[in-house]
């Protein structure tokens, strides 16, 4: 397929050229601006900007909340994918469609409604708050809304792998004497693992960068419920551009390493014939 197509099909130069140009202008150039802006600070100033106690608390919260939300999503995501593929019930197509709602719903709406559900007189808060569970304006609130945001990532990465799984695999396991549970633990789960990890990483990455929903539910208290993107906005609003850029650079570094990890994982997965 390689050089054949370039010889036969038209438009290689035009399409790649335009796509690269657009991507360079719209995405690469602005990101470069962040790197350059933060480099106007000296090393010490940079360290002072990105490593204040307040910033450290914000990184910790951002990573921690995104991580916990993604972890919560792993068992539920796999379970929902399983139900969608293996357990026929009336209205399954509708159920399947609803899973994508967190993709399609504006994050501001998610934040708005999550903040109203868990307040003391909210639909869920009126039962939870008396038990001491603060689901709004707390760290738990951030985890909850990030769980909502991340749910489709794991379902949608695991679901196709599960659907493409050949019946022969399980039939063979059954013929070889494995019980249903053994088949699940020893055969199915290992097969689904790469997709699950990819979905986890995607949900995690999305959670780290999430802003719209979190500002509504967290209360944005420094050291307590302030996430890194909120800190960037705060720096920006006090016209500390270089500080904002430096914190953004730290966030970029985190996201990039995740992106690279996801890519490596997918390549590894393909090489080992999972997909």
């Amino acid at each position, binding site marked *: 397929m390689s050089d054949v197509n370039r010889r036969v099909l038209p438009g290689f130069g035009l399409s790649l050229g335009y796509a690269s140009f657009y991507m360079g202008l719209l995405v690469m150039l602005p990101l470069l*601006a962040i790197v350059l802006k933060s480099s106007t600070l000296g090393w010490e100033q940079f360290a002072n900007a990105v490593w204040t106690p307040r910033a450290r608390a914000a990184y910790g919260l951002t990573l921690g909340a995104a991580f916990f939300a993604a972890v919560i999503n792993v068992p539920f995501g796999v379970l929902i994918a399983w139900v969608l593929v293996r357990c026929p019930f009336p209205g399954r197509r509708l159920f399947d469609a609803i899973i994508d709602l967190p993709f*399609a719903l504006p994050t501001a709406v998610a934040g708005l409604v999550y903040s109203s559900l868990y307040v003391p007189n909210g639909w869920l808060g009126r039962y939870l708050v008396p038990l001491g569970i603060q689901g709004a304006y707390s760290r738990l609130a951030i985890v909850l809304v990030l769980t909502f945001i991340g749910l489709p990532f794991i379902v949608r990465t695991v679901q196709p792998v599960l659907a493409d799984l050949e019946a022969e695999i399980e039939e063979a396991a059954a013929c070889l004497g494995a019980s249903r549970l053994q088949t699940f633990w020893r055969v199915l789960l290992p097969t689904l693992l790469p997709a699950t990890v990819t979905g986890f990483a995607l949900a995690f990455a999305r959670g780290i*960068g999430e802003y719209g929903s979190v500002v*509504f539910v967290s209360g944005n208290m420094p050291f307590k419920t302030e996430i890194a993107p909120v800190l960037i906005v705060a720096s920006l609003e006090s016209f500390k551009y270089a500080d904002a850029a430096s914190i953004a650079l730290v966030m970029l570094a985190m996201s990039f390493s995740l992106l690279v990890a996801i890519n490596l994982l997918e390549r590894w997965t393909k090489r080992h014939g999972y997909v």
Partner: protein
Amino acid sequence: MATSETAIAVRRAQEDPALVRALLIAIAFAVVGLLVIVPMVNVFYQAFSQGPGAYWNALAGDADTLSAIWLTLKVAPTAVVLNVVFGLAAAWAVARFRFRGRALFTSLIDLPFAVSPVVAGLALMLIFGLQGWLGAWLREEGIKIVFATPGLILATAFVTFPFVARELLPVMEAIGADEEIAGVSLGARGWQIFRSITLPNIKWGLLYGVILCNARAMGEFGAVYVVSGHIAGQTDTLPLRVEKLFQEYNTVGSFAAASLLSSLALVTLAIKTTLEWKTRRDLASRAREAAGEAVAATALQSATPTTAQSPVAAPDTAAAPADAQPTLRLVQRDNASDAGGAPHRQEGAEVGISIRNVSKRFGDFTALDNVSIDVPHGALVALLGPSGSGKTTLLRIIAGLEAADQGSIHYEDVDTTKRSPRDRNVGFVFQHYALFRHMTVFDNVAFPLRVRKWKRAEIEHRVHELLRLIQLDNLGKQVPGQLSGGQRQRVALARALAASPKVLLLDEPFGALDAKVRAELRQWLRRLHDEIHVTSVFVTHDQEEAFEVSDRIVVMNHGHVEQIGTPEEVFEHPANGFVMDFLGNVNVFHGRVEGGRAVVGGLDLAYPEYPHHEAKPATVYVRPHELEIDRYAAGPSSLRAEVLRVNPAGAAVKVELMVRDFGVPLNVVLAPERYGQLQIRAGDDVYVFPKRVRVFVQDYSI
């Protein structure tokens, strides 16, 4: 108990017990209900909590909310259009071409997924903001980017940038380039291919990408929040307006605005589900067709090889009366024959295609090594060889779908080596047809004429003429999915012939069909060719097919031409052991030649072609029908053998023997009459002698 469970597990290994299933469904509903459905319902509940009048007032009675709606309707579609153009270009480049840095390019498309929207907004501020790189210059020029609509568009485009490309890429990769390449070979140009082949094929995927991109664009918050400046009534999009109302403790107002965005999300999901279903159905039917073909093809391959008997290989029933002394005709060819060297010109015939010294390498693999062939004008030539012999590569080079590393291709003495397939005017029939699935049979056949700007009436006339030729005149309005494999192949042929090509090229044209259809189509192709006489080359690995259809056969192996000749020539006078071996059943013996004799096991044959005293290893080939069986020894070359098995089914009787003296199994084919005379059974002792053998001395040339 345990056994019955196992039995169930074997019968339906993928099905969980009903109780487990119910539990799983219940948990799934609980999770999705709590996380997704309850919040969704709550949005509308809160929006209408003060009654529909308050809801209406919150939306229509609030000028800032109204302007936010309009701004969103302006910003999001603009960003989507920008990203659609990008997505099409990027998907075309990545899905259709291989280039250095392709993997990097693909990962860069995903970049905005990993960048926090706030960071994206900040980046735009650093460039276009008042203190940004271009800030001072922009202010002088009076251009407002940030705190104005252009900034909102840029921020939205940045964040939603991957969506269209990400949706299109897998769809385009799954569809493959076959139809587009077919379009090129039929004479379509760049834009025509995109508009009439690619776009109809990806339309659902594209629409899906657009819908998703639009939903995210309308809901974008973080990046827009940073660059908007929050000027009420001017730079607040709907999500920003939701936030502002929320900060103002205007519950009904914020939830009413949110309900609009939620409805948008729900509509998006409904459309998305429908489109996804359509895309999946399209791709699934493609996959099903491909799989069905593959199954048919493998079934054929496993059925054909050993039992195949070529037409010219019919047992010589008149030969060998019982008392006649067998005459041994020794045919000797050395392995380093004239294969691949000088062009094989047939005297007196005009040359239709001339392949001169063509070589092609793929990395370390040599697909073609200095191949030269002349195809006579109007002839039907088969390229025959095992897989990996380079025959398909050669065909693609003739078509211009592949470039030769060295050598040249001439059509009737015109050098076409550097021409594109479009300018060569070839008809190419692809193994899997590559019919345009979204077009009717008529439109498929008309395609090469339309891209050549034929007049409407002429197209009509020509297409009907061709449809009559392939006997499908009544199926013009069907789409390819409704046709059988054989019909599709005929349509592919008609389409290739439509623009009256100089040369017709067929790549394993019958490979994907079942045996019966295959046989019919072969004869049909032969008759068709006798009518239209277009210079044709077809690739096959099936020797029976090559013998039945072609005027001349080019036997290829490891990128070399082993022999060129008429079917009879290559069968009766194979140039070397490979050709002998490849064309039908043969008994192979390994022995030696020395001093004018060939010695193989118990056989000692006169072999005057090799008078030297130095012994050389040699291989002796005897075709099953060139062995004679008798009850009595008929001379010194008769060998004693035991009958192992007799298979009298079919037009000829197959006998398996074991030669006693040197433990070699032999396959013999007898005419039924001869079998009737002999009355042999398994376990009988008989004598067997060759009527004709071929000796090939290794590395020996005269």
